[in-house]
């Protein structure tokens, strides 16, 4: 177990700091590439480095807040934010966040009384939610790709069901040009807030929900999601910081990598086909899930639920960490490979074109 500098904050040497920055970079590339997320990579990554889960989530959500603020300023200028929709979702998501923060911090306290590993209960809980939600997301994405071979968009059984629900009161949103039942809105907001608060991943629910359930145009959905993420991030950060679970050093280090990564990732979307994007995303998520699942026995042991040799703690931690880096690195390699090869093809076409027209 790593040393703790002060209360729940780990000691950062140069090597650890560099790893956090690298996490940020990979997370940034993925989030620029996919359009949302990135947290699904950074939260478990930090946990692997020994950061308590709650602190990882708290720092991540603070990081997300600043990033979203920059992005939403740009989108807001272009009129892509439905403020009314954003506010409605925001209010319900606050309840979800509060709930999540309360569970996380309470569990963090519980572990202490057992005298076992610090924050192990919270870590276990966060990991479990992470594994459940994201494996469902990744598997359904993969199934869609395999089943339809890209002929149809993502699956939307639940979305269709919710979309057809027109329980009054129904609210009209002028910018997005849709009508949505308040109930459906509340469910989506609550779920988004809860997940953002628990694992630091919210956009995963928000954007698809807005597009498929509410029928919001994609540009407005992404714009509104950024708006949402800004305030949800701020609210989440606020909730975690007053409990003392935000490590500013980690936030800064994440930025160090992610803000560079995000530009690289966004650039990649122009070079890579949508189906490849979806494939990369789901495989990376799946590998992240596996990595987190490997770490679960360690927390169980800390809590005294299972017992195995000390050696295995190190091995499992190592495997989990390795898996995560394989996940991130492979995603980034695919993206960068595509960017570079598109670049080169383009250069050759340009050369040929210049030759033929010049002649």
């Amino acid at each position, binding site marked *: 177990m790593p040393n703790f500098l002060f209360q729940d904050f780990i000691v950062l040497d140069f090597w650890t700091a560099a790893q956090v920055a690298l996490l940020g970079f990979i997370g940034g590339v993925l989030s620029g590439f996919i359009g949302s997320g990135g947290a699904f990579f950074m939260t478990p990554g930090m946990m692997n480095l020994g950061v308590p889960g709650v602190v990882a989530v708290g720092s991540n959500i603070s990081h997300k807040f600043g990033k979203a*603020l920059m992005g939403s300023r740009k989108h807001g200028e272009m009129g892509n934010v439905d403020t009314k929709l954003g506010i409605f979702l925001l209010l319900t998501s606050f309840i979800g966040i509060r709930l999540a923060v309360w569970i996380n911090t309470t569990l963090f306290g519980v572990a202490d009384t057992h005298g076992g590993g610090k924050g192990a209960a919270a870590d276990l809980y966060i990991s479990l939610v992470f594994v459940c939600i994201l494996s469902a997301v990744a598997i359904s994405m993969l199934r869609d790709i395999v089943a339809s071979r890209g002929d149809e*968009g993502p699956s939307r059984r639940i979305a269709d069901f919710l979309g057809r629900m027109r329980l009054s009161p129904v609210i009209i949103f002028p910018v997005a040009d849709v009508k949505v039942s308040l109930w459906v809105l509340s469910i989506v907001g609550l779920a988004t807030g809860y997940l953002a608060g628990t694992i630091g991943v919210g956009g995963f629910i928000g954007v698809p929900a807005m597009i498929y359930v509410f029928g919001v145009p994609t540009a407005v959905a992404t714009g509104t999601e950024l708006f949402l993420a800004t305030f949800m991030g701020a609210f989440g950060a606020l909730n975690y910081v007053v409990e003392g679970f935000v490590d500013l*050093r980690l936030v800064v280090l994440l930025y160090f990598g992610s803000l560079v990564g995000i530009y690289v990732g966004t650039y990649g979307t*122009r*070079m890579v086909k949508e189906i490849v994007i979806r494939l990369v995303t789901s495989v990376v998520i799946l590998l992240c899930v596996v990595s987190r699942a490997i770490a679960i026995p360690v927390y169980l042991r800390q809590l005294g639920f299972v017992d195995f040799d000390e050696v295995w703690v190190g091995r499992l931690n190592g495997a989990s960490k390795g898996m995560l880096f394989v996940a991130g690195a492979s995603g980034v390699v695919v993206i960068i490979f595509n960017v570079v090869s598109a670049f080169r093809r383009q250069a050759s076409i340009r050369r040929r074109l210049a030759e033929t027209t010049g002649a």
Partner: protein
Amino acid sequence: MQLVCISRGEQEKGKRFAQQLAAKLTHECLSQEEVAEIAIREGVAVGKLETAAVKKHQLSERQVLEKEHYQALFTRVLCERALKGSLVFHGRAGHLAVPGLSSVLRIRTEIDTETRVEEVMSRLSLDRARAKVYVENVDEDISRWIRTIYNVSGSGALGHDLVVNLGRVDVGGATTATCAFAQLPEFQTTPASIKVLEDLLLAARVRIALARDKRTWAAGFRVQADAGHVTVSYLPRDSAVGRHASEVVAEIPGVMEKTCAMVASNILWVQDRFQATGATFEAIVKAARHWHSAVEFVKLTHDPTPPSPETTDGDGAGTAASKPLPLFTTRKVDGGIEEDVAPVPGRFTADGELREIFGELNARGIAASASRLPDDLRRIQTAIDQTIPYSLVVVGDVFLDQGQAARVRKQRELVGRLADVVKAPVVNAEDLGQMVHTGWVDYAKMVALAGVVAAMFLVIFNHQEEVLRFFSPATIGAKIAAAAVLLVFVPLFAAAYGTLAKAVLKVFHVE
């Protein structure tokens, strides 16, 4: 020759109005449904696009290609028919299929909901409640369809020349009144609008051919034509497929010249007069290279409607050569189609400067195309194809013939209008230079920012314990302080470092 497009949604009365209008004007009549049947016969999965609108589904990548195919087919059918003789089209916003055609008469029919509910009740034999649900939903569906296909908000009278309330005026009366309206000079075909139709037709044919060729069907293309010169562009992600575009295009009759280029973005360059030298040109070339963009020139013209036949081929008041020159006669045709056809006058035939700029850009391997924009700002919306994802609009020297004050005001207005329509950043030529070029000011800014960021890092990492202690607040006051500092510091740091990262990446051409 005339093209009338009636947006009538699903209204039965609108159909009758269109048919009677066509009969009275002795025009041909064409409906949305007929076009759809042609498309189905030719193998376009129209139904998928229609149901996507009803079920609020987003189009998959495959369906987006299908959409491009359908769009091109729609344009082709409309142009073919309109070139053959006068035409009344009725359906959903047909005028959007012929962007840039200024002579099209756009009519929208409106009927109040109650009347429509009654009509639907008897036509479809539905009870009142269901008929009401149908009427309300079907309108939403249609505007969603228009948004899916043309990327424009489909509701409202905006973008039409005439709105006829068929709930109040009967079909006969409306027909008579509209007949008179259709005689207005604004809606008569001119040689210039024939040229636009021919260009649109050729571009549509090329797009369809690309969609049906097994080498190129799997990629998205943007096709433009100008008097036989076809410009095809595609995204880098489609480069593997896109390479074959050239071969496919070469086989299409009517294509006299072609430029196929891979582009990552589209730049729209609006200006009064063009020159193949000078600061603005250099900036555009640099920007196009930098971002791998296709450049579309838009010449702001004072478009007198109706232009007399003599002046339409030329370009306004004697700017250049008086003798019309075909635009692209200097280069050899590589598709095997020799120029035994009499050269069609280009859109800017009289413009030696434009010909030169085309040549210059093509020689540099930059895809270029041209269109014209009326300097009547209210008509910008119709003149610009809103399905094209422009990434940047550059406004060069415009309104040169006006006084200083008027020019500044008009230019500002133009920038505002363009920003509304195109949904992309609009910049002046001077700013463009700065966006691409990294000058010493930028380097100085970068150094300053780097200093700030480094200082923040140093402070945090040299005082780790203090920082962490501060962020583990025990008292209410400390909690508030910690929260406030976090909410201020984090965005500041993100902004400072983000700007720095962006600037650094710009040097490495990653944007």
